[in-house]
């Protein structure tokens, strides 16, 4: 019969409409601003329509979410900052749109390069948020931020991020990406242990050599 298909289709829209109100009842008016409800309503178990009330509430960003990169520094006990970046340049070499610029610092006395960037720029008008820089960084120094609320009125003065703007403490990293942070810490610890072992072996060899020459 002509029109049956239309009526059935209307039935689906009514179902969607009703489901949203059923969902309202389910949470007893605590549908919004309720983290418990929020997690369910964003998931595949959601019933009815789900709207995130941005900016009052925000979607939970998954750990891997990536936006603009940032640089990590460690806070030493004496309060100074130590950059993890050694200005090896791998991120600048792997960056697909070539938006990373690094100035390597030189030792003022010897003139030889030291493993520390004196400047670090990212042109975020070019950055494609691909995450390759963080993926291939051998020193766990550049990672992807979760902050997406960075719109501006003037790109010329603000959208080339310099080192000052990119630098974030390791504690910030631990807060936004806890799982990755743990993995990185393990990797760093392993590297330190390896280095110590190497050092110990070298010392032992040296000692043996010394003993031999003594004999």
């Amino acid at each position, binding site marked *: 019969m002509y029109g049956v298909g239309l009526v059935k289709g209307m039935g689906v829209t009514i179902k969607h409409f009703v489901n949203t109100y059923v969902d309202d009842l389910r949470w007893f008016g605590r549908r919004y601003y309720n983290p418990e409800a929020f997690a369910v309503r964003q998931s595949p178990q959601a019933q009815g329509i789900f709207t995130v009330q941005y900016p009052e509430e925000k979607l939970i960003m998954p750990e891997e979410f990536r*936006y603009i990169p940032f640089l990590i520094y460690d806070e030493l006990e004496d309060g100074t900052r130590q950059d993890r970046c050694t200005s090896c340049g791998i991120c600048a070499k792997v960056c697909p*749109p070539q938006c990373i610029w690094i100035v390597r610092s030189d030792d003022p006395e010897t003139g030889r390069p030291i493993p520390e960037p004196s400047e670090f720029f990212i042109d975020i008008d070019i950055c494609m948020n691909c995450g390759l820089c963080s993926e291939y960084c051998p020193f766990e120094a550049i990672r992807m931020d979760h902050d997406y609320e960075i719109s501006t009125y003037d790109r010329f003065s603000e959208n080339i991020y310099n080192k000052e703007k990119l630098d974030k403490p390791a504690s910030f990293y631990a807060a936004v990406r806890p799982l990755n942070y743990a993995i990185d810490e393990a990797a760093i610890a392993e590297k330190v242990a390896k280095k110590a072992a190497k050092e110990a072996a070298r010392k032992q060899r040296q000692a043996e050599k010394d003993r031999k020459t003594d004999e």
Partner: protein
Amino acid sequence: MSEELSNNDNPVPEGLQGQIAITSLDKIYNWSRRSSIWPMMFGLACCAIEMIATAASRYDLARFGMEVLRASPRQADLMIVSGTVTKKMIPIIVRLYNQMPEPKYVLAMGACASGGGPFKEGYNVVSGVDKFVPVDVYIPGCPPTPQALLHGLIKMQEKIDGQSVLEVPWYRSEPIDEIPQPLLGPDLIDPRDIPDFAEKLKAQEERLAAERE
């Protein structure tokens, strides 16, 4: 009328409280404009998909009074430049901008529209729509997530809030000049370059010669 509009400088006489409200013209003007920004339904590239997603139920532009996406520039207040602007497309974008009635705003969504983005080096890419039309808000990201777009739109509302009827350019007696439409020649030609074209062409030749050496 909402609380935020009431003007505290002019206290309402006791007997009239609750019946009248006093506000400044700027406030009510800005409030009404920022609460009903109609964006143009105009998608360019990847970012357009995120723009559509923002208009859909999960992010819901209607909460900001922006759900009326108009396909015609004549009915739009806001042009969301959502994606890579190419040389072949920029004459049309400029024409659309000229066709929009004032007051009008432009939002550059994503890295490509702001400054060329990852495709900046491309021979057919305009590195930033602001080379041709004035941009009010830039949203970085490739593509900006729907929430980043909403953040940009809220910034836009803030900008509107800060404007004054007396100072905005569109209530003056003299008309505002249209932006001249770029031309497609051997390469994109900006009519604003034509007065000193020969000079710049000479500089280009010198640059190329220096590069060859």
